[in-house]
């Protein structure tokens, strides 16, 4: 773990946020602040020094800050973002998808010490990958050996068992689209699911429409998923959405080689490119 305590990181965040605002180039800094519940924080936009002092850093800072950069795609001033490893991957995702411009972002990277969120156990990128300033010393990253174990186990079930499991899960879905709105890979200006009049899917929240929505979303984001786990965290009905996206990622790894998204390289999404030597099963 980095050499700073939580309090020290919090102080540094406030300090860096104030510095950023003082330059006049940054309109606001997005971070987290307290709520009335000790185990919840909420995303917070600091515009003034006094508001910067409300920014907090603790193990409950679990909301992704990156998606808020999309609220204003063509800002007049830079947006400051407190960024953990996963947030920086989310930003890379959106930068690569040409949804954001790097020059519109001021990224305050924080080496993450893990949050009260199950997905953090499998984190492979605690250090921010993209940043303008970095708070804390980079730590050694761990490889998650269990990245796909759950998927592998699930694959072994019979077809009917699988179908029944998912059908029950999609029965719970209430069509709130929280998974979509929280997902950094879901960055289309207008989602297909909002185009009801086109007829991609019905508006009713019944099993069949939920299945179509669920699978479509998985396929839309599967090759661009950064495994931040926001979809699963925000789901009010607790659907295991990551179990679907990870299946896509596992197959991609199996078929087309090692693959991880949201890294600051120039790789394209898997379904947006091809190789002549890809395996062929359709001969």
């Amino acid at each position, binding site marked *: 773990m980095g050499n700073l305590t939580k309090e020290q990181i919090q102080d540094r965040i406030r300090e860096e946020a104030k510095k950023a605002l003082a330059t006049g180039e940054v309109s606001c800094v997005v971070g987290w602040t307290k709520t009335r519940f000790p185990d919840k924080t909420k995303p917070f936009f600091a515009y003034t020094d006094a508001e910067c002092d409300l920014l907090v850093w603790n193990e409950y800072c679990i909301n992704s800050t990156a998606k808020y950069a999309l609220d204003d795609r063509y800002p007049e001033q830079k947006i400051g973002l407190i960024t953990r490893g996963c947030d920086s991957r989310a930003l890379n995702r959106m930068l690569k998808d040409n949804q954001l411009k790097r020059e519109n972002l001021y990224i305050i990277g924080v080496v993450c010490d893990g949050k009260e969120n199950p997905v953090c156990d499998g984190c492979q990128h605690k250090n921010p990958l993209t940043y303008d300033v970095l708070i804390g010393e980079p730590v050694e990253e761990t490889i998650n050996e269990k990245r796909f174990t759950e998927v592998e186990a699930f694959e072994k079930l019979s077809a009917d068992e699988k*179908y029944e499991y998912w059908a029950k899960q999609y029965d719970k879905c209430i069509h709130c689209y929280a998974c979509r709105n929280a997902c950094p890979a879901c960055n289309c200006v207008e989602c297909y699911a909002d185009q009801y009049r086109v007829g991609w899917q019905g508006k009713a929240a019944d099993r069949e429409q939920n299945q179509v929505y669920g699978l479509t979303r998985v396929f839309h984001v599967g090759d661009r998923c950064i495994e931040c786990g926001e979809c699963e965290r925000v789901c009010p009905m607790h659907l295991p959405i990551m179990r679907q996206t990870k299946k896509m990622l596992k197959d991609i790894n199996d078929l087309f080689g090692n693959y991880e998204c949201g890294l600051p390289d120039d790789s394209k999404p*898997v379904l947006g490119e091809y190789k002549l030597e890809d395996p062929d*099963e*359709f001969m």
Partner: protein
Amino acid sequence: MSVKKDSSWEPVILAFCCNWCTYTGADTAGLNRMKYPENVRVIRVPCSSRVNPQFILRAFQKGADGVLVCGCHPGDCHYATGNYYTRRRFMLMQRLLEYNGIDPKRFQAKWISGSEAAKFRDTVIKVSAEIKALGPNTKFAEGYYAQNEGGNE
């Protein structure tokens, strides 16, 4: 869902065929009076990569028992690269559907060129037989016909 699995049951199979190869192949098969099962509905698309994975989901939802996507052999795409994308896309789609409980035989993809009328016939016969053996598809299907009479309860 009423399962209509009696001996007279015939599956509904949807075949998305590329305009530049398989569709021509199917045409040739017809011209040569080749016999193949009539339960296949052919939909002509400009390229196999035109087929959105949602088409397949929607087909199952609206009552298809099987879906077939046919395109040009790799290297032969009219638009140079379309079928390479198709290849990646549907290899993943097939696996994802299997992961969700759909038999991979219900969704198949094949490369069939304009001159391979016999391959088209053979593919359709094979797919049709396989799906007939699997029986009617109820997964992902809308329960419309079952609930039609009952009103709201």
